[in-house]
């Protein structure tokens, strides 16, 4: 029986269908979870998809943070449940304080829709263990106006020390992008951070879209490993196993 993975649908979500498709391709049974429901229907993992929840009014992700479904997601995460936020979903997780940091307006002020490369810093997480190798460039699209990762310097140092930087923007050869490298790190994220993981390793968010790069017909399959990792970890969690050995490096 395939594992049930929830996909939260906010008013303004627009990657929920892409995400359910990618999850199904990876062998999961996707379950759409409407923002007004307070139950997660017993799913083994939750994905917060991309889009513009509640119109991104005030700040991207902040209104969504207070929805009934997010209270349930917060409780689920507190019990060790697996949660992945993609793009707007990452913004929601950051606003909810489930992952560290904030996503600011892109440095260049423009909405950016284009391919980037990211690399996983660690493979010992529920979101990356099926990837071939750490540091390998993965090509997938970004589509956001507020994707510039920010935390203050002491927080950034703590993230590095605790191995909570999960993905970084890199060039096509896998070299880490600089903060001011607009080619490889187009939104100007500090320390080229594209994705982070919570301290206890069960919640992660990233700005690029692995679900839009999860099969050859989409032009890249590089995101499939992230989706596969999540589905596999969810299946293990559903069968009562520990997802994977996680914890600060």
């Amino acid at each position, binding site marked *: 029986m395939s594992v049930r993975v929830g996909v939260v649908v906010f008013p303004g979500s627009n990657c929920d269908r892409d995400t359910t498709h990618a999850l199904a391709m990876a062998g999961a049974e996707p379950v759409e979870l409407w923002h007004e429901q307070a139950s997660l229907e017993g799913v083994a993992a939750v994905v917060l998809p991309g889009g513009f929840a509640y119109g991104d009014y*005030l*700040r991207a992700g*902040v209104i969504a943070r*207070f929805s009934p479904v997010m209270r349930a997601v917060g409780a689920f995460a507190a019990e060790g449940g697996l949660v992945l936020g993609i793009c707007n979903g990452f913004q929601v997780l950051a*606003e909810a304080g489930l992952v560290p*940091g*904030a996503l*600011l*307006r*892109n*440095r*260049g*002020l423009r909405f950016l829709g284009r391919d980037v490369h990211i690399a996983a810093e660690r493979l010992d997480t529920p979101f990356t263990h099926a990837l071939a190798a750490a540091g390998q460039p993965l090509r997938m699209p970004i589509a956001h106006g507020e994707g*510039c990762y*920010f*935390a*203050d310097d002491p927080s950034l140092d703590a993230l590095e020390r605790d191995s909570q930087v999960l993905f970084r923007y890199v060039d096509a050869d896998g070299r880490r992008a600089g903060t001011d490298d607009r080619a490889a790190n187009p939104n*100007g994220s500090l320390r080229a951070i594209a994705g982070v993981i919570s301290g206890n390793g069960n919640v992660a968010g990233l700005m690029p879209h692995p679900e839009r790069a999860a099969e050859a017909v989409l032009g890249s399959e590089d995101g499939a490993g992230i989706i596969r990792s999540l589905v596999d970890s969810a299946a293990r969690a559903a069968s009562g196993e520990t997802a994977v050995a996680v914890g600060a490096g």
Partner: protein
Amino acid sequence: MSTHRFAVNVTPKPGILDPQGRAVEGSLGHLGIDGVSAVRVGRRVEMTVDAADEPSARAIVERLASELLANPLIESYAIESVAGASSTVGEPGG
């Protein structure tokens, strides 16, 4: 009960890059204006609050500002009373 009008001014914290502020600064030359620097673009949210008294109303706004209107990681806020818009509704026992 009384009615109070407030404004919450939300601004990017010092040290937070404010690309909108930079863009505004960048346009000043086109206007022939110089001598203006450190432009910061924020947001002003106005609201009317019904509460027992002014301190209770302000406490509600404080909670709204800190939990929703500003993200404490990146923004500061200041609450101000908007003059002339407050009134006390005569309500027995209120």
